[in-house]
């Protein structure tokens, strides 16, 4: 399957990922080769096969939801400590709404 440069740009947009021109050319080549290989999947007869949405089937040893009760969590200060920009107890981001 051929992946076009236009498709690569579209997917990079969806992924919120800036790519350089060189990276885009490499993606066309590399992703194309990988998708070619993956296209073998389309030839497999999966009629009547249920998709595996869970790794382990529900059983007493894997049914593990806890009671929904509030517990200790990070303080505001701890939660903000790794942000490059934070002020007044909030994360700071570039302007989102135009005045």
């Amino acid at each position, binding site marked *: 399957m051929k992946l076009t440069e236009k498709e690569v740009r579209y997917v990079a947009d969806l992924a919120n990922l800036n790519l350089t021109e060189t990276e885009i050319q490499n993606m066309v080549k*590399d992703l194309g080769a*990988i998708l070619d290989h*993956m296209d073998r999947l389309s030839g497999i007869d999966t009629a009547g*096969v249920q998709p595996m949405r869970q790794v382990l089937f529900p059983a007493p*040893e894997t049914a*593990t939801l806890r009671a929904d009760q509030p517990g200790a969590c990070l303080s505001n200060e701890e939660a903000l400590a790794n942000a490059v920009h934070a002020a007044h107890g909030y*994360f700071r981001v570039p302007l989102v709404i135009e005045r």
Partner: protein
Amino acid sequence: MDIRTFTVDSIRTGLRKREFSAVELTTEALRFAETENPKTNAYLRLSSERALAQAARVDALSARGEDAGALAGVPVAVKDVIVTKGLVTTCGSKMLETYMPPYDATAVERIEAAGGIILGKTNCDEFAMGSSNENSAYGPVRNPVALDRVPGGSSGGSAAVVAQGTAVLSIGSDTGGSVRQPASFCGVVGVCPTYGRVSRYGLVAFASSLDHIGPFARNVSDAATLLRVMAGRDERDATSAAAPVPDYTALLDGNVRGMKLGVPREYMQGVTSETLSQIEKAVERFRALGCEVREISLPSTGYAIDVYYVIATAEASSNLARYDGVRYGMRAEVKGGSLIDMYRATRGQGFGAEVKRRIMLGTYVLSHGYYDAYYLKAQKVRAMIAQDFTRAFEQVDAILAPVSPFPAFKLGEKVDDPMQMYLSDIFTITGSLAGIPCMSVPCGVTREGLPVGLQIMCKHFDEAPMFRIAHAFEAARAF
């Protein structure tokens, strides 16, 4: 004191007989790691302060005659995708160069509660994506067995420190073989337990339906001890299983007589002749130990790579969406730019080539018009692969196979061809997709002296027989 020869048992004995204290042992381990690390680049940083404080705690408990735990005084290294409170955790990425976690992973908490000493954080492929440790933003790791070769990946640093003797134990993460393959390349024991066996709380997510935390050790018993310490239900990870955790080491009696072992014919193809002959020798050894070995078939094996790279990249594209420059990690400044411009610039600058490739692939297979053809189809074929194993385990107690089609390759050898790199994961990916426990145990070396690992796979939650088989094999090899 030679840290390279230490085991969990020898440390326990040494501490009890007062041949050394935990502080003395830790001081020596840190010194040795500091001296030896430049050869391999396996550690990204050592945690001297934390290690010495913990060692003092262990000594204080011992002085009062209290049990300091199953790992008392044992130096343990932690892969840098597992968070450690107050100790920078980079995931091998520029994106998280300064990330300081505000909490400890459950696995780390349990290791310290059992008296283990966290010695430092180990190098790995960026966000655990890779099979050679060449995708780290902090430089590749060299294989301590042959310094011009890769240690495997993605947990290359964790395998290397145990092989090099700069730690006694380590932990890594395994999503498609990232513990087993480096273990086989470096000649140590590496375990990927049952999905859900070890809590992933504090493991930075790559592909959530495939991620596992697993131990590395220089012998089977040590790996079993470390797994037992980490295993079991954790309220903070809803996917962690409540299944009881047996005392694995108590069950290592060397007796495997009458056990039924299967060798899948699909795993004996496309393997180098030297790897094949090591696996065949291992099979003979099991026959001599009284096992019944038969050929089996896992017919869907050939599709595993495709299934894995659809599912793992799809999940990764979603999990890595969180790196947006706002809450943690690096942030690219875009003068006069919008929020979206900032996201895109940050991600473009912060991620390396392989991570970008996987985000792109995952976004593509989940995008409108392709979901059914790739993601849904892959989930169906994943069910067929899991079914293969269910059927096989109706006939046999365990499956024997190579871990990798070839031994450690040279640095740079496969770095330009992502598909070739992906194909090297063929034998470890199937077990990951099925969620079954698998491990690599050293089974021999090639003419060049490169280690070959034997993979042992069992059914869900059957780590105990898996360890018993590996231990009997290890003991038989020693003779």
